[in-house]
């Protein structure tokens, strides 16, 4: 039996006094697409940020590909990982943000080649040709030399996806990737993500796009108030929710 790509056991996270995650337990298998749904403030984004250690968890166990996030276990003791080790592990996990967070002082091509060159030490030409390939795949072969400010939101988000893929991640995290987009630009981003799912990428997607969840997700997890309310196949959770809270949420967004 293979190790799950992500495994969370009773994960807790506090910001000061406020407890944002109150015991999240879930598993994501290799090649699985998991969609996290829920009202804003339910802790979906925070959980996503915990997975690549942008946030530190306070209690519980969280591991990616069989290794703890941010710690090393020696006997009964946990040792904090050094910053460079955390960085190395983050490099294997791609992340796409709601507000794209492209580097505005770099062209589309430079955005995609930057990390492979600086982090992986990939030769410039090789990184360049890989980046061209990736940007071509998301339909932006003609925008290589454009700066983010010259691109539409949908184009920026596709560059951001290419940038994350350039690191050849084993897991992709999407934090509301289409929430900041005009409705007519949502489709092009979802199309790129659909393609990625078909190629077998393990993905965790925080989204409000129910159509995408129904069509692409293997598992849908509904979160509210820092806990998992229910999870299962999209057909079960979205069509026949068992919990009142899920039903109420779905009735508002569908």
């Amino acid at each position, binding site marked *: 039996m293979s190790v799950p790509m992500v495994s969370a056991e009773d994960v807790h996270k506090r910001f000061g006094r406020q407890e944002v995650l109150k015991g999240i337990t879930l598993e994501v298998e290799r090649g699985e697409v998991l969609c996290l749904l829920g009202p804003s403030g339910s802790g979906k984004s925070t959980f996503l940020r915990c997975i690549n250690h942008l946030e530190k968890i306070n209690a519980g166990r969280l591991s990616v590909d069989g290794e703890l996030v941010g710690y090393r276990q020696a006997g009964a003791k946990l040792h904090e990982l050094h910053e460079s080790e955390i960085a190395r592990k983050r490099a294997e996990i791609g992340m796409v943000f709601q507000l794209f967070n492209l*580097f505005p002082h770099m062209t589309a091509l430079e955005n995609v080649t930057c990390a492979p060159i600086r982090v992986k030490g990939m030769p410039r030409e090789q990184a360049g040709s890989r980046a061209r390939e990736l940007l071509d795949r998301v339909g932006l072969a003609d925008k290589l030399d454009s700066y983010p400010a010259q691109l539409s939101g949908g184009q920026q988000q596709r560059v951001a996806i290419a940038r994350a893929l350039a690191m050849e991640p084993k897991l992709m995290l999407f934090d509301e990737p289409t929430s900041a987009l005009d409705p007519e630009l949502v489709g092009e981003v979802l199309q790129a993500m659909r393609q990625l799912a078909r190629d077998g990428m393990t993905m965790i997607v925080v989204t409000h796009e129910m159509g995408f969840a129904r069509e692409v997700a293997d598992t849908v997890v509904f979160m509210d108030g820092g806990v998992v309310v229910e999870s299962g196949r999209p057909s079960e959770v979205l069509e026949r929710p068992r919990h009142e809270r899920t039903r109420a949420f779905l009735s508002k967004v569908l």
Partner: protein
Amino acid sequence: MPSAEVTDGAGRPADITAVPVRRPGRWVVAAIVVVVAAALIRSAVTSPGFQWKVVGDYLFDTRVLEGLLVTIELTVIAMAIGIVLGVMLALMRLSPNPLVSSASWLYIWFFRGTPVLVQLLFWYSIAALYPKLALGIPFGPAFVHPDVNTLITAFRAAVLGLGLNEGAYMAEIVRAGMISVDEGQTDAAQSLGMTRIQTMRRVVLPQAMRVIIPPTGNETISMLKTTSLASVITVTELTYAVQLIYSVNFKPIPLLIVASIWYIVCTSVLYVGQYYLERYYGRGATRELVPTALQRWRAGLLSSRREWT
């Protein structure tokens, strides 16, 4: 009376051609400005006190040019120290280690809290405080004992005083630039596996430059003129050089004009440099490339002509 053609041949309405609003106030103000300017120029040209002939005689005097060179050297070295120190202090200030950030805070507090002139005098007389320096292991044996009086020349004291003081101001400018960069940029850089240093170097600092450059240009221009304070500790920079000359020939006015002309020439050169630096670091911030100074000036002339008539 607005002209009222409504359509051209193609059915599209013609561009509006209207009689512009009359602005007599503008003409009155412009006339005043011209008269005052003319009076100033006339007085400068005709008044014998200016002694333009003497100005011309000394403008390229070797002693003046040597002083100018020292001024430029002081400016460049002190700003270089200031910028390097400023970046280091800013990084220290943002460090998670409280001792490191407090050290930076203390430095900035001290050097911003005392006048540069006092700092210069202090460095100049540092030998009174530490006659001997000892280079070696702290609290252990020393290997070299340089003599402070010969080590700290007037020029070096000036460089130290101006540079260390500048570091404190630059630190605040750099810090302001760094905190102006959106946190999402750090998130994105870290999610790609960059370390804290790489994130700073590749992502945060280049973007902070847009905020850092204008006040740094300001500081450089200010530094160019602050170097004249080094005259009090006998550094023969531009101001002291002309002082030495007029203390012999008793013609302070034309010689101070000579110094002023060179200061203005230097600051003008810095203006141009700053403009192009801003243009370089502004890339990606706007959709179009910022025009060069000349392009912008020409565009401005054209549009103001349109507004005036």
